[in-house]
Structures are given as C-alpha cells and as structure tokens.
C-alpha cells in the first residue's frame, strides 16, 4: 500500500476527470467506473456476507429457538393447567365417592350394631331364662332332697321318741313299717 503525496493525488484526480471527459458519457460524468464498480460490488458482497452470516442469521436463529421454547413452555403450562384441573376434578370426584362410601359403611355398621345388640340382648335373655330355669330346678331338687332328709330325720326322731316312750326297742322292720304307716296317715 502506498499513500501518494499531494501532487500524485492531484494527478490522479486529473486522470479521472480526463477519463470522464474523454468518455463523455453520462455514466462517466456521474463517476461510474468499471474498476470501482467491481470493487464496490465485492465490498458489498463482503458486507452482505458479514451481516447475514455473523449478525442476522445467528440472531434470527436464536430468536426462532426462543420463540419455539416460549411456545412449548406455554403449551406445557396449558397442559399442566388442564391436568391440574382434571386432577382436581378427579380428586373431588373421589372425595365425593369416598363420602358416599363412608356414609354407606356408617349406616351399615349402625344397622349391624343394632342387629348385633338385639341378638346379644336376646341371647342374654335366653341365658337368663335358662339360668333361672336351672336355678328353679336345682331349688326343686334341693327341696326334694331336703324333704327326704327331713322325713328321714323325722322318722329317726319318732323312732327315738317311741323308744323312749315305750321303753323298749321294736325290731327294726316293724319299726320302720309302723313309722311309714303313721307318716302315710299324716299325709
């Protein structure tokens, strides 16, 4: 690269103007020059390459990616919201079902309790009746036994009393027959 001095620059400017004058065309008078045109074309191609590949393309790509992410996030959020609403609905449904079920169980338990209570009450009643009957039977047996015992005791007492009164003892068999006869008569 070489930077010209003032004289050279003037010469070059003169060259350009001379070229313009010699061409005489409108294009040349407006500063059009084939070499400069090609050079500017290359410059613009470089600019376009840099602007697109290094600035706009990465930016647009990143913006698209972000937009996609945002869209996906919004969709996910909507899905989560829908799922949540559905879950809440299901939860409420289950709760309601559980309440109904619980009420049914309580009612059933109540009825069963009642039934069981009645059954136990009846059983107790029967048991009591049975016990009372048993007790009565026992009492009756005891009473009979006691009666027998009293009879026996009475016979012995009478025998003893007779022995004392009569002063002698009757034979055993006569004694017994006699007492029984008296007792029979007494009845």
């Amino acid at each position: 690269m070489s930077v010209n001095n003032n004289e050279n620059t003037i010469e070059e400017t003169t060259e350009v103007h001379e070229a313009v004058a010699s061409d005489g065309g409108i294009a040349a008078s407006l500063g059009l020059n084939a070499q400069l045109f090609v050079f500017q074309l290359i410059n613009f191609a470089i600019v376009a390459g840099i602007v697109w590949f290094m600035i706009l393309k990465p930016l647009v790509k990143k913006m698209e990616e972000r937009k996609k992410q945002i869209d996906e996030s919004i969709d996910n959020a909507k899905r989560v919201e829908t799922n949540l609403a559905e879950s809440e609905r299901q939860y409420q449904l289950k709760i309601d079902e559980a309440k109904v079920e619980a009420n049914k169980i309580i009612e059933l338990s109540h009825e069963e309790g009642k039934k069981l209570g009645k059954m136990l009450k009846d059983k107790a009643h029967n048991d009591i009746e049975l016990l009372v009957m048993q007790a009565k039977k026992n009492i009756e047996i005891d009473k009979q036994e006691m009666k027998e015992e009293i009879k026996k005791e009475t016979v012995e007492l009478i025998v003893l009393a007779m022995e004392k009164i009569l002063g002698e003892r009757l034979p055993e068999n006569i004694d017994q027959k006699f007492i029984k006869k008296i007792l029979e008569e007494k009845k």
Partner: protein
Amino acid sequence: MENLHIPAFAPEILFHIGPIAITNTIVNVWIAILIFLVLGLFIKRNIKNKPGKLQNACEYIVELLLPYFDQVTGDRKKTIKFLPVVGSIFFFVLLSNWLGLLPGTGSIKLGHSFLLRPANSDLNLTLAMALVAVLSSHIYGFIAVGVFAHIGKFIQIKGIIKSLTKGPIAIFTAIVEFGVGILEIISEIAKVVSLSLRLFGNIFAGEVLITVIATLVAFAVPTPFMMLELLVGLIQASVFAMLTLVYLTVAVQEPHGTEH
C-alpha cells in the same frame, strides 16, 4: 467563500493498492465492514438464549424491522428467506449513510482529497447494490417458479402460439401481452437505474448541502441539517430495502394465468 469545496460526482482517489484505486468512499465502506465485523464477531461468540445488552438491542432492532417486512411479503417465512439480501442492504445503507455524518467526513484531508466521504455518494456502490437487488430477485424467481416460467413473465411467446387457434382477438391480446413483457424487461433496467440514482442523489445532495452550510456557517447552523440527514439516511435505507423486498416478493409469485 474561496474555500468552498463542492464534492464532485466521482469519488476522489486517495491511493492505489496495486492496480486498484482506493477512493474515499471505499474507506467509508471499509469502516462499515469493520464495524459489522466487530459486531458480528461479538454476536457470534456471545449469542445466548438469555441475551446480554448488545444482543438484546440487536434483537430489538431486528424484531422492530421484521413486521414491516412481513407487511410486504405477507409471510414471515418469506421475510426470513429474503432477509440475507434485504437485511444486508438495509443495515449497510443505514450505517454507511450515518457514517457519512461523522465528524471528519468532508473535513479531514489526505493530500488534496478528503479522507472520508459518504459511501452512498458513490454511484458505483449504489449501482452495485441495485444490481445485486434486482439480480437476486430474478435468482429467487428462478428458484421459486422455475427458469422458464420466470423468463416467460418477460418473453411471452407461449401466449402468442396458444392464441393462434383462438381467433383474432386472442392474437391481438397475446401481442399486447408480448409488448407488455418487453416493457417489463425495460422496467427491470429502470429498477436498477432508479434504485441506484435515488440513493446516490439523496446522499450526494445531503453531502453537498452540509458542505455548503458548514462552509457558510461552521457552528450550530449545520446541526439541524445533519439531523435531517440522519432522517434521510434512515428513510433512504428503508426505501431501498422495501423496494428490494417488493421486487423479490413479486419475482417469486407465479405468473398470471398459471393458477387456472
């Protein structure tokens, strides 16, 4: 008034690299390239899902721009497809226009020439960009509708052949359509000329205006004009980019009648 230097249409040659003449507009283009390169390297290396301040600012600008482009293309996918051309044009034109307003432009001298001059005040550059814009519209057209279908938009011989069996009115219509096709070819050339001359004219006029005003009154007075030039820079970048986008959008559309 003796020091009044009205810039010439042609950019001034500063030095040579081999056979290539380096002009002051090329220096401005290089500065723009350097800025984009630094920015590009920074973005490419530090791009994250959770953006930093610079990435955020860049994304904000792109996000601001894309809906405008969408209005023309009608589809975000198409906008992204055209973004390499349209985005590059917009940002480059905008930056080089605003770089032309930096202190030093039109004042720092290298020899007898000014070191810096707005890049778009060089018709070579604006013509190069216009040519790229129009040519890329045809390349997109070839890809989108096919080479023959796209060429058929301009040279409508098929219509004439078909009309031969349909009577004189159909033939007349086909001839008119053929003529319209020829006009379309001319309009393609006009697109290049109008795009390049519009940008060049506006930026060159702004440069001349600021030079004249700054020469007349150096302090404070040029400021509103510079503010105006900021706006002109943005508007011209938008116009160039939007027109390119329109050309691209039209080029990828199916030719009339093919849908039936």
